[in-house]
């Protein structure tokens, strides 16, 4: 009796519902992407390679730790952070620090941690578990990846220092000084000249730099935007057509339960501010271990940002990244399950 109606109406309705989910994802992600691309533009225009080289520890582990910690100051979500990371890497930030930042940024920031605190019944325990596990996973993954990929796996790598050093046809007859002089960021040159200039010219320069920030932002928005749209569409389709309940039936052992929560986090592609509430609703089904897997994996990797990553990094690197994040999240969640479950 219902079948004829289903055939005609249901697919259209399902598509409209899919579209509603899709648009809500877009509407929630775009503001963060816009902020992300503007920050990326600001980094491009106002932060010099030299400054980064000065503050960045040479030691691999120290630089990873630094990278994994600065997320505290960038309240960003997983969509906005990809363009920022790309820009930082292009400014000479070493791979391990950049990836450390990219992985922890969406988790270790005040807004997300506060949301987690609220979602889990005003308790700090889950906040600490989430925070600590994310940090450890990010540090391990970053160090391993930096060892596996000595060459920057960016699709477009424009950091001049390394390119010049590596390029065999570096121009003969240029002294070391002139080379550094060339690589100085325009902002630094401007700074050096600034005292001589009248205030009006100085203001004009800053205005011009802000104009450049916006131009970079636009470029970045268009290079990242399409991945966001495709990713959100796939995630919305998954939510509409894949009955997530079938997954839950499989979660008998701790390992399977963690794997299922990782799969759910990937498919649902939730914003890292909202995912704690969803995680807390799974408390009846899963224990602390699998929940921590969900809370740590989701902000690091999901459908939306996988596509963005594929647009920014080489394929091999993205798959390695996803693989290692999965492995370490699994291990981490099993350990957490043992300690706190």
């Amino acid at each position, binding site marked *: 009796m219902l079948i004829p109606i289903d055939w005609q109406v249901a697919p259209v309705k399902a598509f409209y519902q899919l579209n509603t989910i899709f648009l809500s994802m877009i509407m929630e992600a775009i503001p963060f992407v816009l902020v992300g691309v503007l920050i990326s533009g600001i980094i491009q225009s106002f932060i010099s390679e030299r400054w980064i080289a000065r503050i960045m520890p040479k030691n691999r582990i120290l630089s990873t730790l630094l990278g994994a910690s600065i997320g505290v100051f960038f309240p960003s979500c997983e969509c906005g952070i990809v363009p920022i990371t790309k820009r930082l890497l292009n400014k000479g930030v070493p791979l391990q620090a950049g990836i450390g930042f990219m992985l922890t940024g969406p988790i270790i920031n005040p807004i997300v941690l506060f949301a987690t605190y609220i979602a889990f019944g005003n308790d700090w325990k889950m906040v600490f578990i989430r925070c600590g596990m994310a940090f450890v996973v990010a540090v391990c993954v970053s160090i391993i990846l930096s060892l596996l990929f000595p060459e920057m796996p960016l699709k477009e790598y424009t950091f001049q220092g390394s390119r010049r050093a590596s390029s065999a046809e570096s121009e003969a007859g*240029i002294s070391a000084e002139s080379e550094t002089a060339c690589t100085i960021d325009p902002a630094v040159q401007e700074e050096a000249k600034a005292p001589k200039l009248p205030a009006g010219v100085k203001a004009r320069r800053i205005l011009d730099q802000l104009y450049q920030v916006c131009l970079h932002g636009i470029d970045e928005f268009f290079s990242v935007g399409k991945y966001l749209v495709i990713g959100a569409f796939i995630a919305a389709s998954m939510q509409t057509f894949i009955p997530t309940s079938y997954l839950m039936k499989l979660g008998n052992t701790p390992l399977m339960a963690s794997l299922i929560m990782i799969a759910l986090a990937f498919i649902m592609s939730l914003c890292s501010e909202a995912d704690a509430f969803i995680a807390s*609703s799974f408390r009846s089904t899963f224990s602390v271990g699998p929940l921590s897997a969900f809370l740590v994996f989701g902000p690091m990797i999901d459908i939306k940002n996988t596509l963005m990553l594929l647009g920014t990094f080489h394929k091999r690197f993205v798959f390695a990244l996803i693989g290692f994040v999965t492995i370490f999240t699994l291990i981490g969640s099993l350990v957490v399950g043992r300690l706190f479950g």
Partner: protein
Amino acid sequence: MKRFVIMLGFIMMFVYIRVEGNLNMYINTRYSYLSVMTISILSLLCVVEFIRVFREERAEEKRKEAKAAEREVGEVLGAPGLPDSKELHNRSGIHAELDNHRAHHHGHEDHAYREREDRIAQHDHAHDHDPIHHSHGHDHDHGHDGHSHGNTTRLQRAFTYLILCFPIYTGIFLPVQTLDSSFVKAKGFSFPNLDTSANNPGNHQFLRPDTSIFYGKDGYDKLKKKELTEFAGKSEIHLTDEDYLKGMEVLYNFPGEFMGKTVSFDGFAYKGEQVEGNHYFVFRFGFIHCAADSGVFGMLVDFPKGTVLKDDDWVHVTGTLSSELYQPFKQTLPVLEATSWSRMDAPKNPYVYRSF
């Protein structure tokens, strides 16, 4: 210009959805500031993009003029034995390269660079010129990370624009579809599992009460006090749109406190396959942030004998809270024994939102 149009399109979509009052169909309006933020940032970028296009066009004109003028000069200076001929050669080489760049992507900064190049060429020796030019070349690349080079990108760029137009089109022209019982099914919340309740932050406490591991003793007590005092004092609990989610959470968290009390709320009926007789679930979709993280929140209701409801029939139910061992779940669930109920029209806004 296409970029300008697309960004304008996004602004229009956001404004349209706000003006139509449909924002709450997509996101929790507590987060409406996000859409304001989007509109303002995009407007700024639109203005900048417009300036860029304008400047580019002006630069194009100037360059044409300059080129024409240069050709004249070149003809005059073309005489042999000129000391600067090497430099001149160098300069024309750069122009050729710049033209090349332009062919690939409409370089808006070309003009500025060329001016600088010219200045440098006039003052400096030709040897110094080269590395500096090189570094400018890099800067130039920076500015155009967005679109890479080569002929294939024409297609790629068209593809990008097409994809970005898609949400603008669906946002403005496709109707908003509210989530209803069919989406409960689509999401696969079948009832033998706990999955209907899986998206309900309230259920867990009742279904598996030993969740004290999640709460420090103090935190648990504090929470209990804060939320309980809001509802426990009342003998009758009428859940409104505003306190629906909070109320449900409390009812599920502390069912013991509310047994035998009168509870009333609105929702749509949902007949799970396993629900027997006159048992229906009465649900509402609740948003945490947006439609993507929404879930169903509600309660199993024991309607009077002979009640026939279809999925998505909206009802107002009043009843006494009790609990029963619910076989399909093999667990004790809170159940509302309906004392009275009435059909109602679907509310204009079927959703309830989480307030923090």
